[in-house]
C-alpha cells in the first residue's frame, strides 16, 4: 500500500528553536496516531503537512506533492486544530456553510453538507441556533470535526480531538473516525488519551524533542503491540490468595500486593501461558475479581522510559 505521506530527513527550526529535527517516516492509509509529550513537534508536523510552514530542510510529500502553499494538496486535506478559538458571532450552520463555500462548494451544496456533517457528529439541531463561541468544550470539538467533513477530504488531521469530551463523546468520535477509515479516508490523530489512541489506530509515530527515536517506535510497533502485557493489575477480594495460586503454577516472576486497595500487581514469567488460560485460571483460583487492567499501555511504556525498563 502506497504511503500517503512521506518524509525524508525532514527538519523544521524556528530560528534557534527546534520544531522537527531530521525525521524520516511514511504514513500509510488508515488511522495513524501521533504521540508525544508537549513540545515534541506534533503541531509543527501538522503545520508542515498542511502547507502552512515550509521545511527548513529535507523532503515532505503529501499525496505525492509538496504541501507548502499548494491548493491541490489542501483540497484533499482537512484539519481540526487543538485550539478552541472560533469566529465570534457565528452559528454552526453559517460557519460551516461559509467554510464549505471556501472549499469550492456551491451555496446550496455547502448548506446541505453542513447539516449532514453536524448530524454526523451528533450535534443535535436544537443546538444549531446557538453561536459556536457559546458552546461547551465537547460541542466545540464536534463542530470542529464537522468542518473537516464538508469537502470529502482524503486525509483528516486531528489535533487533540478528544479534549473535553466525556467517554460517550469520545466513543462517538471514535466511531466516526472508524467509519471514515472504512470509507477510505485516512486519519492522522494526536491525543494525550493514549488508551483511546491504542484502540483506534493501526499505526503510530512517536515523537520526542522533535525527533522520532527508533527505540520508541519499535516499542510501539505492530509486533510489540501483538505481545501480551508483561504486567497486569488485579483488584480482587483476596490478592494474597491469588498471588499464591499464580506462584504455585509458576506463572509469576514477581508481584506487589496492596491490601488496602485489594490489588495485586503481577509481573509475568510467561504472559502468553497465563493469557491462553486466562478464564479457566481465574475461575479455578476461587478469587472474586473486580477489575483487571494492563499496568501500562504499550504507548505509555513507549513514551515513558521508566515504564519501559
Amino acid at each position: 500500500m502506497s504511503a500517503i505521506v512521506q518524509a525524508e530527513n525532514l527538519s523544521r527550526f524556528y530560528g534557534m528553536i527546534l520544531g522537527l529535527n531530521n525525521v524520516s517516516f511514511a504514513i500509510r492509509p488508515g488511522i495513524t496516531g501521533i504521540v508525544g509529550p508537549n513540545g515534541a513537534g506534533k503541531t509543527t508536523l501538522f503545520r508542515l503537512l498542511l502547507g502552512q510552514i515550509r521545511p527548513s530542510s529535507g523532503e515532505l510529500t503529501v499525496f505525492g506533492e509538496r504541501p507548502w502553499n499548494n491548493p491541490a494538496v489542501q483540497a484533499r486535506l482537512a484539519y481540526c486544530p487543538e485550539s478552541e478559538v472560533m469566529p465570534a458571532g457565528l452559528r454552526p450552520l453559517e460557519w460551516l456553510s461559509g467554510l464549505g463555500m471556501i472549499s469550492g462548494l456551491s451555496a446550496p451544496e455547502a448548506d446541505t453538507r453542513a447539516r449532514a456533517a453536524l448530524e454526523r457528529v451528533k450535534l443535535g439541531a436544537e443546538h444549531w441556533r446557538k453561536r459556536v463561541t457559546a458552546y461547551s468544550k465537547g460541542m466545540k470539538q464536534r463542530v470542529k470535526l464537522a468542518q473537516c467533513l464538508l469537502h470529502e477530504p482524503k486525509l483528516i488531521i486531528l489535533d487533540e480531538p478528544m479534549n473535553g469530551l466525556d467517554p460517550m463523546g469520545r466513543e462517538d468520535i471514535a466511531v466516526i473516525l472508524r467509519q471514515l477509515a472504512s470509507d477510505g479516508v485516512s486519519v492522522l490523530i494526536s491525543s494525550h488519551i493514549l488508551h483511546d489512541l491504542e484502540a483506534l489506530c493501526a499505526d503510530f509515530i512517536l515523537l520526542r524533542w522533535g525527533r522520532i527515536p527508533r527505540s520508541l517506535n519499535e516499542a510501539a510497533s505492530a509486533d510489540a503491540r501483538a505481545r501480551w502485557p508483561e504486567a497486569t493489575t488485579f483488584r480482587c477480594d483476596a490478592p494474597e490468595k491469588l498471588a499464591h495460586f499464580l506462584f504455585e503454577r509458576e506463572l509469576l516472576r514477581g508481584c506487589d500486593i496492596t491490601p488496602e486497595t485489594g490489588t495485586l500487581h503481577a509481573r509475568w514469567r510467561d504472559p502468553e501461558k497465563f493469557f491462553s488460560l486466562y478464564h479457566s485460571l481465574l475461575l479455578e483460583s476461587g478469587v472474586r475479581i473486580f477489575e483487571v487492567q494492563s499496568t501500562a499501555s504499550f504507548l505509555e511504556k513507549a513514551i515513558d522510559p521508566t515504564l519501559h525498563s
Partner: protein
Amino acid sequence: MNTASTFSPARVAPNLSHVWGGIWRLTVRRFLLPGHWLTLGLGLAVLTLLLIGGGHSGSPARFLDWTVGFYITFLVPALSFVAAGGAMRDEMKSGNVDYVLTRPVPRPAFVVFKFIAHTIGVQIDFLFAFGVVTFFAVSRHVPDLGWVTIKLLFGQMLLITAFSALGFLCGVISSRYVVIGLAYAGIIEAGVGQIPTQLSRLSMTHQVRDLLTFLLGGSAPVTSVPSLISTTSLVALFGVIFVAAAAAIFSLCELSGPADS
C-alpha cells in the same frame, strides 16, 4: 520518493465564485455582531459631538472646509486604515488560519476577496457617518446640497478604498501595523504631501483634498489643477498596488510560529 503517479489527480481548483461567496458570508457576519453595532453607535455619537464642536459656528463654507479637511481626509482614512489592518491581522490568527487557510483557496484570491468584502462592509458603515454629516450640512444650509453631497461621498468612498488597501498591506506586514501607518502618515501624508511639487501627488489625502476643494468652488493648488479622472485613477492605482503587494506578501508568509510547536 516520487509517489505522484500513485494517487488520483487533484480535484479541480475550487470555483472562485463560490470561494468569494464563502469569504463574503464569513466577513459580513462580523459587521452584524452586536459589538460592532455598539462601536458604530459610539463612533457616530463622537462624530456628532465633533460636528457640533467643529462646524457649529461659521458659514457653510467653513463647515465644508472642516468636513473636507478633518472628516473626509483625516478621520475616514485613519479609521479605514485601522479597521482594515485589524481585519487582516484577525485573518492571520490561528483561529482563522486553521479553518480558512487550510482550505484549497489560493492565497492571493483570499486577500483580494477579503479586501473587497471588508471594504464593502466599511463603506456601508461610513454611510451612517456620512448620514450624520449630511444632516449637519442641511442644518447649516449648505447651498447646492445635492451635488455637494455626491462629491463628498465620492471622496469618502475613494479614500476608504485606498486606505483599506493600505491597512491590508500593513496588516500583512506586521502586527504593529498602526506603527507602520503612523510612519506612513508622517512621511508621506504630512511630509511629502505638503511639498508644493508633483511629489505631493504621492499623498492620497492631499490629492483628494485638493480635488474636493476645487470641485466645491475653492481655489486650485499651485502645482496643478486637479482632475477628477487623474486623481481617481491615481488613488485607485495606489489601492491596487497596496492590495497586490499584500496578496504577494501573504502568499509567501508562513502562518504560524514556534509557540504552536
